[in-house]
């Protein structure tokens, strides 16, 4: 039995060496990749753009629809973001009568470091305005933040309004 075990010894050593070499190669590959990346992140913790959305994706408005004297506008703040209710302004661009807010969601009360006690909207909201005639285009001003991270510059968008057929009585 003893002699029978002897030939196994070099095989075990070779396997161990192979494992050590593979582990060493793995460590070198890891070092080659991780070390330069760490050096390229001098701000320390990776808090930069990675998981933050550009404003176009973080805060969205549209579409705008008109039907039977009511303009409906959809808006949405991506997860982790919010829109300021008081800073959401809609104007028509064709010189028609000013839009009157019919139904603006109350939103969530929020103690803002800058603006004090304000209302914010998270997720998707639908806003309704009174407009006797369908505006061709509207201008929307809005502002919002990614909570505790960044605030987006005030936005200005112009949107076409799609008139919908009024259902026959």
């Amino acid at each position, binding site marked *: 039995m003893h002699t029978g075990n002897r030939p196994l010894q*070099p095989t075990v*050593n*070779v396997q161990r*060496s*192979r494992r050590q*070499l*593979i582990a*060493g*190669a793995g460590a*070198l*590959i890891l070092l*080659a*990749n991780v070390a*330069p990346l760490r050096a*390229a*992140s*001098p*701000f*320390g*913790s990776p*808090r*930069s*753009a990675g998981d*933050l*959305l*550009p*404003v*176009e994706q*973080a805060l969205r408005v549209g579409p705008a629809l008109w039907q039977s004297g009511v303009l409906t506008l959809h808006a949405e703040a991506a997860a982790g973001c919010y829109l300021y209710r008081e800073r959401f302004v809609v104007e028509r661009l064709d010189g028609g009568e000013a839009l009157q807010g019919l139904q603006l969601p109350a939103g969530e009360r929020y103690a*803002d*470091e*800058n*603006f004090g006690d304000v209302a914010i909207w998270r997720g998707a909201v639908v806003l309704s305005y009174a407009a006797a005639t369908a505006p061709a285009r509207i201008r929307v001003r809005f*502002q919002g*933040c*990614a909570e*505790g*991270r*960044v*605030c*987006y*510059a*005030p*936005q200005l968008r112009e949107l076409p309004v799609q008139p919908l057929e009024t259902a026959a009585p």
Partner: protein
Amino acid sequence: MTPNRLRQTALLIAGALLLIGGALGLRKLTAENDAARGSLIGRPAPEITLTDSNGQPQRLSQWRGQLLLVNFWATWCAPCVHEIPLLIDAQARWRERGFQVIGPALDDSAAAATYASQIAVNYPILLGDAQVSEAMKSLGDTLGALPYSVLIGRDGTIIATQHGEFSKEDLHALIERHLQ
């Protein structure tokens, strides 16, 4: 060591070297893709001219030779306002060693100047809503979000960019590292 074992070892070493080479090549490609996507890291900072609170034009290149932190901010941006005391402290702490902060405000000029005066900001505040917006873009902002900071080395090369506030620890470590 037997010839067989020698051959196996040589093969393993060759394999490992090939893997390392492949990984390095992949990393280079990734870096090139980052550059292609518009990263400004490692590139010379573009020349930018903005107006200070006295109405005087100030060129970015005048701070060449210093470690320069360009911090874009606004009075309507809570994280920006929260971060400013940290930058005031950093400016006072490392100014003598060649560290400089500048604060272009993406804001109404009067509002930004008044706020900066009220809290005794000890570094130049640069103004001009539209010009500051353009400056942000040319210094690599792709989000339209504040605060946005760009660290520029003494040689005028962009070292790093960051959206969002600094922690005190990160900022101090960063400055110390690049002032050496």
